């Protein structure tokens, strides 16, 4: 007989993953770094929403000082405030567009995997074909043809980044579909929706989270490229991409315009990538056994 207390001593899968994550020192450093950057960007966005675009033509292109921690730009705007507000936009795009992409990929993969047979074959063939698309070109065309806005960015980026998620989810579903616990649920009379909601989604969620954490930096990069090319976030709003573009245009005389947004952007990508690698180890028991 199992003692009743064993249910409390054995941690659930999510808590076990969190404990494994805590044991990795780089992961915890990356997590605190990311939390810090996110926090100051959120607070900065709230505090400086108005004043970040306030021009002061008496204080143009000033190097960093106590008054302006990161200097000022060619219109006398405070770079510190603009970097924080731009970071807010970049992070927002990264998170929302990733959610859009994961949502599409999850739904597509579930339908394809559960549908099986012909449906599955056709849906996966479509994914194969879409992999051959020059996606950057499509996103650029979309931003040019339609009116540029944050919503368009979410949709355009989300619409191109879901392919791998769909493949991962489908493979998981195919593996789970014929396992005993699903068959047992089906034998008990559970409907497709119940099986989907109670058995499939909780089991594929770990994989989706791993992939999402690796997708966020990619999407932030995509957004930065679009804004750098002048196709993303439109002035007077800013994102790290558009700030880097302004910095690159003035880098010879005022390098701080490039260094600060660029540094923040690189630091964020670095913490996200480190965290993604660590999450993969923590959530995927197979990979921890190997290392």
């Amino acid at each position, binding site marked *: 007989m199992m003692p009743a207390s064993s249910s409390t001593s054995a941690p659930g899968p999510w808590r076990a993953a969190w404990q494994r994550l805590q044991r990795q020192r780089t992961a915890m450093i990356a997590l605190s770094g990311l939390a810090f950057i996110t926090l100051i960007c959120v607070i900065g966005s709230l505090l400086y929403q108005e004043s970040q675009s306030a021009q002061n033509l008496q204080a143009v292109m000033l190097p960093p000082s106590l008054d302006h921690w990161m200097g000022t730009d060619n219109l006398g705007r405070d770079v510190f405030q603009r970097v924080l507000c731009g970071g807010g936009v970049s992070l927002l795009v990264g998170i929302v567009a990733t959610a859009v992409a994961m949502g599409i990929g999850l739904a597509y993969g579930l339908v394809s995997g559960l549908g099986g047979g012909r449906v599955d074959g056709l849906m996966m063939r479509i994914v194969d074909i879409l992999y051959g698309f*020059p996606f950057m070109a499509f996103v*650029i065309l979309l931003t040019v043809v339609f009116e540029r806005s944050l919503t368009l960015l979410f949709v355009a980026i989300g619409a191109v980044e879901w392919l791998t998620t769909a493949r991962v989810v489908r493979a998981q579903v195919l593996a789970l579909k014929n396992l005993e616990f699903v068959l047992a649920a089906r034998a008990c009379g559970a409907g497709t929706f119940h099986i989907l909601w109670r058995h499939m989604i909780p089991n594929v969620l770990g994989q989706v989270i791993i992939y999402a954490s690796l997708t966020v930096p990619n999407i932030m990069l995509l957004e930065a490229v679009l804004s750098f090319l002048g196709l993303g976030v439109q002035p007077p709003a800013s994102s790290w991409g558009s700030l880097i573009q302004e910095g690159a245009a003035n880098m010879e005389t005022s390098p701080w315009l490039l260094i600060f947004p660029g540094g923040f952007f690189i630091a964020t990508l670095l913490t996200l*990538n480190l965290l993604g690698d660590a999450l993969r180890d923590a959530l995927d028991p197979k990979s921890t056994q190997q290392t």
Partner: protein
Amino acid sequence: MIRFILQRLFQGLIVIIAVISLTFLIVRLGPGNPFAKEREMPEYVRQNLEKLYGLDQPLHVQLGRNLWNFATLDLPVSYRLKGWTVGDIIAQGFPVSFTVGGCAFLIAIGIGIPAGALAAVRAGQFQDRATMLVATLGICVPSLVLGPLISLCFGLKLQWFNAGGWYDADDWVLPSVTLGLISAAAVARLTRGGLRETLAADHIRTARAKGLSESVIIMRHAFRLACLPLLNYLGPLAAGLISGSFVTETVFQLPGLGRHFISSALHKDFTLAMGLAAFFAVLIVGFNLLVDILQAWLNPRIRLTEK
């Protein structure tokens, strides 16, 4: 094997048709008109222009004609650069993108593969940690930051090269280095991962037990298999590099395909945008096919089952 290649070719054909049709639909159904200028245009001029470019016909006729034009390589004339067909522009821009991208690709594999192999062989030791630290940093430095920095450092400050433009014979160096270094980081990580996994496999243990030297084991037995996951990355990478990088060509002001695409998109030059998108798709399809063939050649398991 031949059936496999034909299957892939057919799939590639569908990709290209889909790309042309989708670009066409996005462009035609979206708001905006390539001839909408600041100045009001007399009605008869607009009608004549639309007739010239076939815009007055129903949508499916236009689409069909577009596909037919691409199939017969009778590429349409650019809306904006009058007198230039899309083919002329590709013929002019592709050599630039190809030179820069090709050199970047060589830099990427020339640095990335040896570095990744070294890290895998010395797993856990100092060389491994140092290489992987640099590589992890490298994949986080985007070209839009590295490009301006390299241009500032070697172009404006040291004046070793032009900071931008396409005038001298060595103008490919800075953009190629920018693109190459960034891709090298990812290549190094993939090489290390693939090689480490292979070095733990059974056939390597057998080779060690037979007393083969470490270099023979790595070069002849491990590397072939370790290449397989790497190839999946290198194919699209080569296609992307050769077709021109949007950011790097903008930073260094190169007259390549990436910049042509952006200016065509910005100026609503839709024939050019459509033609370039189709050309990019052809490159991607071609390189994916090449990867499939190489993988079959390298991996007996694929080769034998597909026969």
